[in-house]
């Protein structure tokens, strides 16, 4: 180690970095922004507003418990609506009028009686919080009113079946998010090379149009996104048993996550999301001069989508002022669409899935348009 040479290298690193103002800004601002946002979400995340559809079940004791439960729930700012039977409660949940259904059985108070708590099933994490609040009050009220052993509370869902698999709520969202992330990075860097390597200038000296460039890029990268997602889906949904060979025991490959719907429909959702990511990559490459700067956009465009699209933090639990931002996140529509397919088993006839697909298509078209506007004949 020679001190002079060491000092020269140290100084070079510092002076080079010092002139890259954007890197410096991001080095200090990005972690503050990100930790701030995460803390805000976790700390200020609202206790979700809950509406309960209550079925008293028809027995006299059921009427009593139902009345007491209503006032106990309302004391906690929980809205209660009455439902005549379990199917009415399920309908209230599926059409969005209620979050949790509580169905008291006819034989309430007798041994073996089971109270059914119903949730939608589409947002297992968010619903878990809502269910937890209701269940606590329910158990306390029922115990006091019945003066008998605690009735069993059974969880049912309007869509799918409640699962114990802890990855089930995350898997669809993560498949979509990863595709978005990788396609953005690949396209961004690839198009940046096109801009800095002189090939874009050269391409613009040919009769090729901007629309042809963006569409061609979209087709090319969507092919790879498609292959990636197909592989990722086979890996997540599949369970391939490998038989015992010699001393090796039998084992399974694949995560074996359950899906209620058709994987091909889920594939379509992710593919539309990926098309939007291609355009986003082309668009943002305008504002980058180096590959490092493409990576630097991640805290600004990718991380907020990760936090605000219901992947880890349920949308229902986000602080109120962040709620309007959710609708601006392309990934949030894909996450919703994928959960519709994976959990609710939605197919292309489902209205809410159609809406998700429509919004994703509009986002892709919009970014495609502004991406092509960033490609000018005058590139220098």
């Amino acid at each position, binding site marked *: 180690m020679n001190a002079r040479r060491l000092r020269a290298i140290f100084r070079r690193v510092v002076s080079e970095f010092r002139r890259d103002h954007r890197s410096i800004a991001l080095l200090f601002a990005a972690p503050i922004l990100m930790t701030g946002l995460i803390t805000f979400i976790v700390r200020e995340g609202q206790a979700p507003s809950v509406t309960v559809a209550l079925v008293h079940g028809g027995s006299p004791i059921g009427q009593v418990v139902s009345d007491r439960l209503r006032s106990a729930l309302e004391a906690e700012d929980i809205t209660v609506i009455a439902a005549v039977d379990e199917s009415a409660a399920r309908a209230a949940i599926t059409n969005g009028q209620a979050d949790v259904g509580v169905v008291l059985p006819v034989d309430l108070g007798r041994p073996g009686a089971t109270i059914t708590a119903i949730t939608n099933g589409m947002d297992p994490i968010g619903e878990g919080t809502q269910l937890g609040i209701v269940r606590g009050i329910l158990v306390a009220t029922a115990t006091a009113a019945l003066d008998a052993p605690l009735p069993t509370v059974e969880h049912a869902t309007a869509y799918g079946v409640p699962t114990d698999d802890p990855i089930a709520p995350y898997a669809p969202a993560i498949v979509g998010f990863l595709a978005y992330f990788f396609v953005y990075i690949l396209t961004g860097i690839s198009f940046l090379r096109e801009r800095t*390597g002189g090939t874009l200038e*050269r391409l613009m000296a040919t009769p090729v149009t901007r629309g042809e460039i963006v569409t061609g890029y979209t087709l090319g990268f969507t092919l790879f996104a498609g292959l990636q997602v197909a592989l990722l889906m086979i890996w997540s949904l599949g369970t391939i048993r490998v038989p015992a060979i010699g001393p090796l025991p039998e084992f399974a490959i694949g995560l074996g996550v359950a899906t209620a719907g058709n994987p091909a429909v889920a594939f379509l959702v992710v593919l539309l999301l990926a098309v939007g990511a291609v355009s986003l990559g082309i668009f943002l490459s305008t504002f980058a001069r180096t590959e490092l700067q493409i990576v630097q956009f991640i805290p600004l465009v990718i991380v907020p989508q990760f936090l605000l699209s219901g992947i880890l933090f349920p949308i229902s639990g986000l602080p109120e002022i962040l709620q309007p931002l959710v609708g601006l996140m392309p990934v949030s529509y894909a996450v919703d669409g994928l959960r519709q397919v994976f959990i609710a088993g939605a197919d292309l006839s489902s209205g809410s899935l159609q809406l998700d697909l429509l919004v994703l298509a509009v986002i892709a078209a919009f970014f495609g348009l502004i991406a092509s506007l960033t490609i000018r004949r005058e590139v220098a």
Partner: protein
Amino acid sequence: MNYGHSRKEPPVVSEVLPDIERDPGARPAIRAAGLVKTFGTIRAVDDVSFDLAPGRIYGLLGPNGSGKTTLIRLLTGMARPAAGTVEVLGVAMPSRPNLSRIGYMTQSDGVYPALTVGENARFFAAAYGVTGDAAVLDALTLVDLADRQGDVTSTLSGGQRRRLSLACALTHRPPVLFLDEPTVGIDPLLRVQFWGHFRTLAEAGTTIVVSSHVMDEADRCDELLFMRSGRVIARGTGRQIRDRAGTDDLEQAFLAFASENGVGR
């Protein structure tokens, strides 16, 4: 090279520089009229007008920053002038369809390193709307890369990449060719070969505009345009320019014209 600092004796040049004699009936391949391009307060191209005849090699000479590349970008329609007009083969630029009749070799190689030689040439041919492989093979043969088609471009030497870059500008057999410093960074042998290619193309009727800051390439051109601070300060054959400047040294002639135009220093 040193422009503007080593002047010896100022030659006497006072007459307005005339255009070269040429067939007055021939339509110019390239016509520039009152071209101006500004970047902020800098006039990168400052009121440039000329007609260039078909089938000749024009040398655009001048130091770095004199506006050669900007002028070429205006002529190819890659940049919009603040004032003035450009016509290439009778069509006003910028014109996207007209680009299929123009070849443009950029200063940087502008080829895809991960593609093979053949893939690069065929890609640009397709972008120009060329069908069939004959023109691509001709272009690669001209630059002596026909037998390297399967090689990945990143494995080529700098000179080979430059040759490929030239071939990519020729895949559509353009009647007008702009070459922005095509011989920068290549060895003398390859430079001689390049000028051989240019002459072959010009004899076949191609109009070629070559920019360079190397004065010893000037005599290979049919006609020279000296650029300085965004202006064409002199135009003529190498002989005419020498005669007018009263010196046999083109560098001296350049300096003489530069000072004559008040932009020498």
